[in-house]
């Protein structure tokens, strides 16, 4: 239930066993390998960076091939498939995966090259089609566009803008020039393609006249074949390309069967890549190698025995500095569900306690208070609980996220019942509108809208307890480090300052007006408490500046006193968000119910109610679950951690099997 103690270890073994030992450690997944700083004449580092890159690249290529196949031939997957987790395979299956890997990589390369070729072929087809469209307008021309006539005739091939007939073209050229034969090859409203022929002797004159009326020759006509024939050639090319696309597509369809194997290959190469990255860190001589790293203390014995049983090696374990060792936290399931939240702040630094047990209690409590609706809580807890029950194999990260929200949901149900919020006030609205008689579920404690000030005071009180827990954890840390006086100065004095004031406040008239009850304190107790608070203040003013010398000591002491007072005030008031967000959930839910009931009773009113209820509550659920999550994090990070937590630790990253699709069934026997 805490930060797990880490030991350093050094392993020396024969180089011929290197592969097997590394695989053994990788499957075990309990050691973190560090850069070996073992020096000696015979030892040097081997640069395996290129191998690492090679395997990583293969892994990525395989993944890319799977993605391409999945895009074309989607495998049947449910919407919740991502929760199914990795497929367990036996160590023997890994051996066969290793044997098949290079064949499968060839298939992956085939997939990727086919995909590229298909794209290229499609582009070529599009090009052919554009060309064909242009040639269609010249298709009827029996000769090439470059044809200029015969020994006795001059031929002109080109186009005029607009739709023309043979007669109108001859009119344009001028009837005085004869005989001229004009043939329409193609006509459209935009342009007319023409084949004009005349005796050779009139060629020059005709050429000039044609230029005068805007006759243009076809672009890029340097072709020997007539356009019709060229179009048929292009059609042939296109058909070939299409056939090759079809062939490649059907090959891909065949290869799609391999997608699961390719995923295994992807993971196999990812594992090898990880191994080669570790080899980089070893000190190696001609026949031996040295591997250094960290291992949790509780795993030392088992690891040592297993290693010594299977291999010839030396395995030494030693103590390491707190600052140097990576941090690994071990907690009960529902406490460690919050590791992700903690990690995204920071892992505990050197010598710090694991804050998760205390943090998780308040986190769940406050999340529930902010979400505070039994209906929503039930949905949240139910959905997470169902997924956890249904997908037992799911990824650890998902598992802990779902566990976290499951607990948040349970706490939400609790507060929902305490303050009687079931989808807002759906019970009373529904019964009033559709059953004719208002039924309501009484709150376990009180209805927040009736006594908002009481709830506000409750939330602030909870905040003071949360902050105090932070101060106490700081005291625990300082005492454990052998600094009890610091604990007195930095933790006890702020508490001594705050608590008497809180009690005095609870006896005041103002408090009585706000919440309806007050403590009756005898006069001597009241003044005693005020003296205690003054003592706390004096304590802070006198001790908080102890790091400075001379007068500066008391100036920084006073400054610290100001900071402590302002800190208590602002931190405590910050917990008013518990009330505001809690009320917001319930009130907006009630607003939705009210909107839904506007059409009154009857079947139409019922349908409207169901629709508005479903959409409105879903919207409110989404917004408030986000708000509750964000603000639970904030209260943990800013108010709570601000009191004691330093962080800065490095997370324990074991050398293991970090794969996406498969996991090894059992660690090596």
């Amino acid at each position, binding site marked *: 239930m805490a930060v797990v103690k880490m030991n350093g270890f050094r392993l020396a073994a024969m180089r011929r066993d290197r592969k097997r030992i590394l695989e053994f450690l990788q499957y075990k997944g309990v050691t973190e390998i560090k850069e070996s700083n073992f020096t000696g004449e015979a030892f040097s580092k081997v640069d395996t960076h290129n191998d690492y890159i090679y395997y990583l690249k293969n892994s990525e290529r395989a993944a890319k091939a799977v993605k391409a196949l999945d895009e074309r031939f989607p495998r049947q997957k449910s919407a919740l498939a991502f929760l199914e987790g990795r497929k367990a395979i036996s160590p023997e299956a890994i051996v066969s995966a290793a044997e098949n890997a290079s064949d499968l990589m060839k298939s992956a390369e085939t997939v990727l090259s086919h995909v590229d070729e298909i794209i290229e072929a499609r582009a070529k087809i599009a090009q052919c089609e554009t060309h064909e469209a242009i040639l269609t307008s010249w298709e009827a021309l029996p000769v090439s566009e470059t044809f200029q006539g015969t020994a006795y005739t001059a031929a002109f091939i080109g186009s005029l803008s607009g739709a023309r007939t043979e007669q109108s073209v001859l009119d344009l050229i001028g009837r005085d020039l004869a005989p001229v034969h004009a043939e329409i090859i193609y006509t459209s409203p935009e342009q007319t393609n023409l084949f004009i022929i005349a005796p050779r002797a009139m060629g020059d004159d005709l050429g000039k006249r044609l230029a005068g009326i805007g006759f243009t020759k076809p672009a890029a006509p340097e072709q020997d074949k007539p356009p019709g024939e060229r179009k048929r050639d292009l059609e042939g090319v296109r058909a070939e390309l299409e056939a090759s696309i079809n062939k490649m597509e059907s090959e891909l369809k065949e290869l799609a069967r391999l997608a699961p194997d390719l995923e295994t290959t992807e993971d196999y190469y990812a594992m090898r890549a990880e191994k080669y990255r570790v080899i980089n860190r070893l000190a190696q001589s001609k026949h031996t190698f040295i591997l250094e790293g960290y291992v949790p203390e509780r795993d030392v014995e088992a690891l040592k025995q297993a290693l010594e049983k299977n291999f010839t090696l030396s395995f030494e374990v030693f103590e390491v500095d707190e600052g140097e060792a990576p941090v690994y936290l071990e907690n009960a399931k529902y406490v460690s569900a919050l590791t992700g939240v903690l990690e995204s702040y920071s892992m505990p630094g050197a010598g710090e306690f694991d804050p998760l047990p205390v943090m998780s209690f308040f986190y769940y409590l406050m999340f529930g208070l902010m979400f505070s609706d039994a209906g929503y809580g039930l949905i949240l807890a139910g959905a997470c609980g169902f997924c956890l029950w249904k997908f037992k194999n799911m990824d650890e990260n998902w598992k802990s996220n779902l566990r976290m929200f499951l607990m948040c949901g349970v706490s939400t149900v609790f507060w929902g019942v305490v303050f009687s919020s079931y989808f807002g006030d759906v019970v009373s609205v529904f019964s009033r509108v559709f059953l004719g008689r208002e039924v309501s579920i009484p709150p376990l404690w009180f209805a927040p809208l009736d006594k908002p000030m009481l709830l506000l005071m409750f939330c602030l009180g909870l905040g003071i307890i949360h902050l105090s827990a932070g101060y106490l954890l700081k005291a625990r840390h300082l005492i454990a480090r052998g600094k009890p006086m610091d604990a007195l100065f930095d933790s006890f004095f702020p508490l001594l300052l705050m608590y008497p004031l809180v009690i005095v406040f609870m006896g005041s008239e103002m408090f009585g007006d706000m919440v309806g009850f007050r403590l009756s304190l005898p006069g001597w107790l009241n003044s005693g408490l005020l003296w205690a608070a003054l003592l706390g203040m004096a304590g802070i003013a006198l001790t908080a500046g102890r790091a400075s010398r001379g007068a500066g000591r008391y100036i920084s002491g006073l400054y610290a006193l100001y900071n402590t007072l302002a800190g208590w005030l602002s931190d405590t008031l910050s917990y008013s968000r518990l009330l505001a967000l809690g009320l917001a959930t319930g009130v907006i839910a009630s607003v939705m119910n009210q909107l839904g009931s506007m059409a009154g009773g009857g079947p139409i009113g019922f349908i409207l109610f169901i629709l508005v209820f479903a959409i409105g509550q879903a919207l409110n659920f989404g*917004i408030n679950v986000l708000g509750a999550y964000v603000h639970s994090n904030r209260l943990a990070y800013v108010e709570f951690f601000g009191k004691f937590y330093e962080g800065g630790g490095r997370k324990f990253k074991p050398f293991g099997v970090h794969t996406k699709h498969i996991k090894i069934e059992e660690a090596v026997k």
Partner: protein
Amino acid sequence: MDKLGIAFAMLGMAIASFLPGWGSAKGVGMAGQSAAAAVTEDPDIFSKVLILQLLPGTQGIYGLLIAFMTMSQLGLFGVPAEVSLAKGLAYLAACLPIGIVGLFSAIHQAKVSIASINLLAKRPDQLSKGMVMPALVETYAILALLISLLSVINVGKIAI
């Protein structure tokens, strides 16, 4: 003159709904542009940036909440309540905190959200940190909501 009471109270209700709504619309809009830009780089971070885009949207909801509370206090859903001029002005005053703070905090929160979206585009694993920073801005909208809420609930109890 007494008839003006309800008019001022409704003005307050209107302010509570349109100022924060305006701010949130602007804020979510600004953040949405950045979110879309981030998705062009990496479509997988869509769900994460969506959360950040949504954060400046809560002010509009807080405003709606106060507007509804005011309406319900005024009895607009059932029997209209007697609202003196002083009381009407008190409702107006009660609506101002969430109205004004809602407007400005939504826009400032959006700026932090945008920065967080940019952060996420480079470091997709830093969602919680990116979420907490805009949430710090929202604190002030929540405090204003609290004051507006407590005031609106309690104005009816003052004998004016």
